[in-house]
């Protein structure tokens, strides 16, 4: 059964080029990715395609590695979001640069211990996000799930760019500060 093998162990097997490990990771980590990508894309076929492409990208990026330090959960989530938003932007012929998944080698990616701490407090984090006012959630959704830039959002919402920026950045600062409070580990100056 997939649940009997820990994710870090599956990742080690993946690095050792064991195809079955990719399938087991997909079974385990696919559902939250699919839910997230379905918030971005409406076609079920495209959702499936993006989720599969995220795992195929993971396979590609783990080639010729001996280990992976980054949290695979965080990396897959950011990668799948980028691949999905890239399709949205292509469909509306956005002039913005192409989005592409971050490198799994990026030193700034959270590691598995940071992810584990987050996972233990997942519900608290979800509740904190749930209390955001509707107007803040709407702007956040445009940035996160619709792939809109600050300039596009200002146009869409008929707001001055400076005001839109202030509101959006304040919302993200709030979310970050709530996470700090709940996790109590980051050392950022907030």
């Amino acid at each position, binding site marked *: 059964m997939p649940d009997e093998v820990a994710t870090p162990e599956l990742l080690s097997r993946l690095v050792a080029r064991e195809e079955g490990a990719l399938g087991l990771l997909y079974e385990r980590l696919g559902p939250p990715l699919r*839910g997230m990508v*379905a918030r971005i894309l409406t076609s079920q076929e495209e959702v499936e395609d993006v989720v599969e492409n995220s795992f195929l990208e993971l396979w590609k990026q783990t080639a010729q590695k001996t280990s992976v330090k980054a949290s695979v959960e965080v990396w897959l989530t950011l990668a799948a979001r980028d691949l999905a938003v890239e399709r949205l932007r292509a469909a509306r012929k956005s002039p913005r640069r192409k989005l592409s998944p971050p490198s799994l080698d990026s030193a*700034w990616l959270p590691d598995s211990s940071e992810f584990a701490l987050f996972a233990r407090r997942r519900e608290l984090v979800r509740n904190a996000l749930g209390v955001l006012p509707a107007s803040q959630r709407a702007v956040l959704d445009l*940035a996160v799930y619709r792939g809109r830039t600050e300039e596009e*959002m200002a146009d869409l919402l008929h707001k001055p760019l400076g005001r839109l920026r202030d509101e959006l950045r304040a919302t993200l600062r709030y979310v970050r500060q709530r996470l700090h409070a709940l996790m109590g580990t980051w050392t*950022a100056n907030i």
Partner: protein
Amino acid sequence: MDCQYLEDLHELFLLGALAEQDEIKLREHVATGCPRCAERLGEAALTLFAILQSPRPLRNDPGARARLLRRLRAK
């Protein structure tokens, strides 16, 4: 280099939502190896991860795993 003025940009940078000049500024600064910005990017990644975990998970389609492995072998 003082990068306090970049403090609120990292989440938007990862989302690809910044205006081009802000994005270039941050990218160039990160490339200098600024430890504070590396830390902020990690924090931003976890913040976005938390937000992106909000949607309800959707169960895998039956046969999806086999399809993924077929695509892998076809590559």
